[in-house]
């Protein structure tokens, strides 16, 4: 629902968790974007990214930051809902 989307997009504590997640990735794979993206998917979604997903993810990190990627992972349908 839209209010959940607002919280996951804008809430300070969600963004703080995204920052902590990004710090964890950076510490585990410093200066290695490919591995950071791979780890991010393994930790958040328990799977590796498909090539097209990895491309979007790398693009977001390059355009903005690793926090942008970890923030968006918390907003993915796949993260929010059980399959």
């Amino acid at each position, binding site marked *: *629902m*839209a*209010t*959940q*989307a*607002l*919280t996951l*997009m*804008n*809430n*300070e504590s969600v*963004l703080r968790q995204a920052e902590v997640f990004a710090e964890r990735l950076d510490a585990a794979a410093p200066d290695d974007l490919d591995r950071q993206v791979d780890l991010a998917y393994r930790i958040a979604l328990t799977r590796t990214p*498909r090539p*097209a*997903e990895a491309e*979007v*993810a790398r*693009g*977001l990190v390059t*355009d*903005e930051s690793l926090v*942008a*990627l970890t*923030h*968006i992972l918390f*907003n*993915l*349908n*796949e993260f*929010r*809902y059980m399959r």
Partner: protein
Amino acid sequence: MSDHNHHHHCQTRTFWSRREFLFQSGGGIAGIALADLLNRQGLLEAAQSDTCEAPIPGNPFAPRSSHFEPRARAVISLFMAGGVSHVDSFDYKPALTEYAGQPLAESVVVRQGHPGPLMPSPFEFRRHGESGMYVSEIFPHLAKKVDEIAFIKSLYGRSNDHVQATYEMQTGQIRMGFPSVGSWATYGLGSESSSLPAYVVMADPRGTPKGGPPIWSAGFMPAMYQGTVFRAVGDPIVDLQPPEGMTEAQQRGRLNALAKLNEMDIAQNPGNSELAALISSYELAYRMQGCAPEAVDTSAESDATKKLYGLGDPVTEPFGRQCLMARRLVERGVRFIQLFSGGQGADWDAHSDLDQNHRARAAEMDLPVSGLLTDLKSRGLLDSTLVAWHGEFGRMPISQRGVGRDHNPGAMTGWMAGAGIQGGQQIGASDEFGYKAVEQRISAHDLHATMLHLLGMDHKKLTYRYNGRDMRLTDVHGTLIPQIVA
């Protein structure tokens, strides 16, 4: 840097267009898959405009047709939390004066104890309007509206505890966990707005009513049908705006990446239309950021309108502002708006000083509610809007400690106006002391069946499958109030 960002953040937001959302951001085969999915569902039509009114593809709140021609397209529910006294508001009982000081002539069950003898109302009652309805002196402004109001004097409930009684008035059940009437209305009809929540709740700024958020919960229905609480000050919705430092460009970049990744998810799970609804929830959320603050901003209203609702007077301003916000939300297509007069600490629960308590509460809402009826009518909205007023139970005809009244679910008075309802009538009656509803007894189920009927829905046909049953707001009960639906 931060100054620049802040400046950018404060600029008027432009909207993320459907074209951009579906095609530019999508790109490649996944974008085509989403466009195809939405197109097959007929969701792309007329979705090109960048306004607060444009439809959202895949919006689960898209308007749905009613069972039959509705009398009302929106509801404003005014809940007097704590239990407004019927015998001190609209149900005049001269017998309380005649037999003052004598015991109520049957065994009496009270909630808190200290039962005293029959106690007259401390307030004077007079007849008003062409219809000659009795109204207590503490509602001088509503007294001028009686010819537009249908009073229901035989409401009764099944619990003399605030929480259970409130759940019953809201969900039909005294237990927690059932969908509220606002949830059923939006589940049945969707919303006319594609930039605001379908079901908006405004609690008393002093606190939420006893029973808390389950009062506006969606129960066993999906969470999107629960009431969205609008706050009295600041941004109306929690987390409505991005935090300081995040630019619009950054947010848009993140949302575009999110849309791309979610579209790939859809491509992996073809035929799952719920995923499109989830994507649309981000569209609605983004829309709310731009549209919700304007919807509740009362500063552009004329001085005459502000006066009508009692803005500028510290006594009437809090509830008056909420009533004015309710009218603005009705204009923008919100389906169900619920206001609470009274929260924890300052409500209608007059155990210890009825005179002072009810005078204070009535002074806060009498003028604003009267102003709301006037304003809705002058804007041509009253005929298509149901305004309903009630609490969770009435109060005892006997005194408590000589100065208050205890809870009484045996009888209460509620009223309805608008939606083409014949005003200046009274429906049902309580006994001569107001202890029990006796003529044409009306339950919460009957009230709910009638509300759904006014919205164009048959309460026996509006069902939600849960736990192996086609659940109804009215369970296996509910009789339409003939004088209301006539």
